[in-house]
């Protein structure tokens, strides 16, 4: 199977010049990007297998010093797919997030919300043969930021993915359904195609909710890549 990476698919991504997110102003190229053919360099990518994942890396509630983190425990899972909706097995998924109070662990973070000694907020998982990944974590909190007066980020989890090549590399953010802050958030709204924007919101998953233990959310992710010779329909 030969994989191609149509450039048209990239239209769903935000404009790097999206003005509502003020930090873009000095941080986007103003000269035109140059279209080049894909060579072997672009069509290959780093390989991280099971040796890159330690037992427990996918359970963010198990990284504490003295016990479990505070907050609402959730199961977060989904499928990593390509543009033909085929599973992408052995895809490395990295996540990072705030604790339940909306606080990141970072030397530069000044938000006056408490740290949780039992939550660091980083996780890593590999998709299985069906493209499925699963994390256990806690629901992150909203937090303020300086973009405009009374600006708050909706609760989100950052995702970083490696797929079949360096061209399928994706860094994104996953949001939660029904969050009232989405209406005011320029970062999620930088995706102007509403269907595409909706693909960044996970769905509540009752079927995988674990009785007496944790709510489940499902988040499927589509990475670049199509079969060069698609099936006839």
């Amino acid at each position, binding site marked *: 199977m030969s994989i191609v990476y149509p450039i048209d698919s990239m239209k769903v991504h935000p404009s790097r010049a999206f003005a509502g*997110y003020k*930090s873009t102003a*000095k941080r986007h190229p103003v000269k035109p990007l*140059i279209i080049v053919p894909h060579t072997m*360099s672009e069509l290959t990518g780093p390989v991280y297998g099971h040796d*890159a994942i330690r037992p427990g890396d996918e359970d963010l509630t198990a990284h504490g010093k003295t016990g479990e983190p505070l907050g609402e425990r959730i199961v977060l899972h989904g499928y990593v*797919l390509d543009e033909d909706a085929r599973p992408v097995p052995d895809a490395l998924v990295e996540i990072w997030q705030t604790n339940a109070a909306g606080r990141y662990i970072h030397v530069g973070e000044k938000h006056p919300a408490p740290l949780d000694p039992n939550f660091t907020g980083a996780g890593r998982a590999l998709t299985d043969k069906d493209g499925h990944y699963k994390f256990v974590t806690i629901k992150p909190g909203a937090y303020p930021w300086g973009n405009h007066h009374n600006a708050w980020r909706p609760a989100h989890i950052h995702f970083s993915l490696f797929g079949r090549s360096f061209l399928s590399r994706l860094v994104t953010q996953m949001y939660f359904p029904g969050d009232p802050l989405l209406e005011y958030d320029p970062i999620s709204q930088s995706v102007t195609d509403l269907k595409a924007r909706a693909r960044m919101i996970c769905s509540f998953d009752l079927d995988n909710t674990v009785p007496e233990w944790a709510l489940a959310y499902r988040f499927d992710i589509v990475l670049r890549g199509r079969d060069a010779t698609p099936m006839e329909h």
Partner: protein
Amino acid sequence: MSGLTPSQTVGPWFAYGLTPNGQYDWSDLATGNLITPDVAGDRIRIEGVVSDGDGAPMPDAMIEIWQADGQGRLPVRGGNGATPNTSFKGFGRSPTDPKGLFWFDTVKPGAIAAPDGKPQAPHILVAVFARGLLTHLYTRLYFADEAANASDPILKLVPADRRDTLIAKKETRGGKTVYRFDIRIQGEGETVFFDV
């Protein structure tokens, strides 16, 4: 056909998840050091500063690289004629420091073929992530001391007066080879980025 999941900025707080580098209590997937004992190729350091449209250094960016070894072999899962016969990963990830500086210790890659079979000049793929950057950027690093740059099929597509932004300058420091590759996101001397 399924639509892609859109990109979002890496934000300012990725360090403990993606580049802990001993500063945070989490394991590194990849760092700026790509050297493995068995990798073929001349040891080099690559370093540079990432700066914004005002020329100000960006202390909260992340640079990733993807490259072949010194013999032009990409460490992939078979196919494409590549030979994954060493522990070399070909992938590196460096945060920028408070002065906007990133660095990689790696080997100088060998030449690999273009789609038409002709060789490409030795090069490294570079991806740029940062707060304020909603979709990551791709560029390429070439080496100033390579005559093959003159016939490289990708460099030929770049306007002649901008090619210089893709060429890392060679320095020798304490007997070690250092290639300097500054990345200017916007403005005077703006780095060439690719729509791939």
